[in-house]
C-alpha cells in the first residue's frame, strides 16, 4: 500500500489532535508520529496580523510533491500537511506537518525535510499588517531558509 499523503490549503484553522487521530486511525503499524506546528509570532509587539497570499492549485501541488518525496526518501508510513492562507493574527496557527514512521528518526527527518522545502518552494507570501495601522511590508525571504534546504542536497 502506498503511504497516504494528505495535503490541504485552507483559510480556516485546524486541530492538531484531530489531524493526528485521522493519520493513525485504524492502523497498528505506525510506531512514531512527529508533528510540527508553525505559528504567527509577534516579536516586537508591532504586528497586527499577517496576510498570507497563495497560488491556488500550485500551493497544494507543490506541497504534495514535497510530501511524496519525503515519503520516498525516508520511508514514511504517512504524511499530512495543512497550510492556512488569508489573515492570521499573532498566536494563531499557520502550518501543520505530520509524519509517521516505524521508528522516530525517519519521522523527525521527514518533518524537517518537508518544512525546509515548504518554506522555499511552496507558493505562499506573507505581508505584515502593522498594529499602528501603517502599511506593512512583504516579508523577505531568508538566506537561512535556502541554506536549510541545501543541506538535503544529494
Amino acid at each position, binding site marked *: 500500500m502506498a503511504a497516504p499523503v494528505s495535503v490541504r490549503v485552507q483559510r480556516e484553522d485546524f486541530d492538531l489532535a484531530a489531524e493526528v487521530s485521522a493519520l493513525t486511525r485504524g492502523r497498528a503499524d505506525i510506531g512514531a508520529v512527529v508533528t510540527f506546528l508553525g505559528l504567527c509570532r509577534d516579536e516586537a509587539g508591532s504586528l497586527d496580523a499577517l496576510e498570507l497570499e497563495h497560488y491556488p492549485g500550485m500551493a497544494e501541488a507543490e506541497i504534495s510533491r514535497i510530501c511524496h518525496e519525503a515519503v520516498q526518501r525516508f520511508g514514511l508510513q504517512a504524511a499530512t500537511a495543512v497550510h492556512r492562507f488569508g489573515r492570521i493574527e499573532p498566536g494563531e496557527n499557520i502550518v501543520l506537518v505530520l509524519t509517521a514512521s516505524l521508528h522516530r528518526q525517519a519521522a523527525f527527518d521527514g518533518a524537517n525535510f518537508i518544512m525546509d522545502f515548504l*518554506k522555499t518552494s511552496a*507558493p505562499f*507570501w506573507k505581508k505584515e499588517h502593522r498594529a499602528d495601522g501603517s502599511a506593512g511590508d512583504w516579508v523577505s525571504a531568508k538566506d537561512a531558509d535556502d541554506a536549510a534546504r541545501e543541506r538535503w542536497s544529494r
Partner: protein
Amino acid sequence: MSTVNLVYFSWVRERIGKGEETLELPAGVVTIGDLLGHLKTLGAEYEAALEHQNVIRAAINQEHVDHGEPIAGAREIALFPPMTGG
C-alpha cells in the same frame, strides 16, 4: 505570435497592478528570461516589478522552472518573488 495566460503574486502583482492577464507574445520570446525582458518593455509598472530580474521566480503550468525554460505550449505562466510561507 502566441497567446499566454500570465498570473502574478505578492509584490510582483502589486507593482504591475493586476493579478492576471492574457498577452500576445512576439515570435522572439522563447524562454522565461525572454518573457521577462519583453514584459519590461510594456511600461513603467512592469519595469518596477521586474527590475531585479534575477530574483523573480517563475512557474509554468504550476511547476517551478528556471529562467532558461522554453515557454512553448505553456497554458499558464506565473511570476512571483521568493516564497515566504511556512
